[in-house]
């Protein structure tokens, strides 16, 4: 995995804004090491791509939700782009700047093993995106294929933060 060269700016109110975010290109094994942690943290992971219209449509609501929870040390939102790795600089990074995406973004580049890692994320996943997964202490606690609404996200996040 490349280093996370994310430059962060901490504003006066303590909120963190990612600017000029560099997107690490990772394999599925590296992705697993990001979320299979017993750190008592709720990871909300969204699989998306810049070319995916419903994904792009739901991102503003994900960003709203992230703004509500990101100061909570027990919460982390991760966006996993499935754009082609060669487009990380030409498409993905400009998209993040233009759309003010403030969550940590990785690009998952493991095309030849899709038939292994898609079922490893969830047996019911047909491979269509967007898809959203919640992990708590390295264990998957929610999976949703298709768009999610803000209220649904908030309700599930609250449920799992309470159950910790």
């Amino acid at each position, binding site marked *: 995995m490349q280093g996370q060269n994310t430059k962060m700016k901490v504003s006066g109110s303590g909120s963190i804004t990612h600017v000029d975010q560099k997107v690490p290109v990772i394999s599925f094994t590296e992705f697993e090491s990001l979320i299979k942690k017993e750190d008592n943290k709720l990871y909300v992971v969204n699989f998306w791509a810049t070319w*995916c219209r419903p994904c792009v449509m739901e991102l503003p609501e994900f960003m709203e939700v992230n703004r509500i929870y990101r100061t909570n040390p027990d919460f982390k939102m991760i966006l996993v782009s499935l754009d082609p790795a060669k487009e990380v600089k030409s498409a993905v990074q400009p998209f993040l700047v233009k759309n003010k995406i403030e969550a940590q973004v990785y690009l998952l580049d493991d095309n030849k093993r899709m038939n292994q890692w898609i079922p490893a994320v969830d047996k019911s996943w047909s*491979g*269509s995106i967007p898809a959203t997964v919640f992990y708590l202490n390295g264990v998957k606690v929610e999976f*949703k294929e298709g768009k999610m609404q803000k*209220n649904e996200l908030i*309700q599930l996040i609250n449920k799992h933060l309470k159950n910790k």
Partner: protein
Amino acid sequence: MITLIQAKENKMENTAVHKGYKIGDTATDFKLKNVDNKIVSLSDYKGAKGYIVIFTCNHCPYAKAYESRIIALNHKYASKGYPVIAINPNDPKVEPQDSFEGMKQRAKEKGFTFPYLFDQGQTIYPQYGATKTPHVFVLQKENGKNIVRYIGAIDDNYSDANDVSHKYVEDAVDALLANKPVLLTSTVAIGCSIKAQKE
């Protein structure tokens, strides 16, 4: 603020319940309009041993990446009794690039040698259980019925046709042609979700 949002009724949808065909089910025939304005049904192919039904579309980068390989599949297998039947399942009101006019253009530009049908009214893809493009269903004719023998991806590398290790659809059709069981009956790959207004 948060409490107010929480108080609102939550619109939970059923999570990941995929209706549609499983391996061994009988697939429905259909009457769908082709890019040449003629109506096409599976039963039109009297001599077919089966079909490679592919839900695909114009706009999706994954579908585009596979267009040449779909043409090659038809070239290889139509004469052996397994023609490709391509169906665009998307609602053009949601994805304008997938209009019937757009399909005609795409079929002409790429020189499609197989029918490219429009699932007008979106009645067929939900019966099959297609969720994305491209999404393949290999059917085998048996006693007048079309039995689902394979569901999934075309091969294991959308981004590079020269670096494919497993040709899932070819392996399935080759097995059927040799009267052998299909070893890998279903696979998954990332694809573009099928566009419908109710989503």
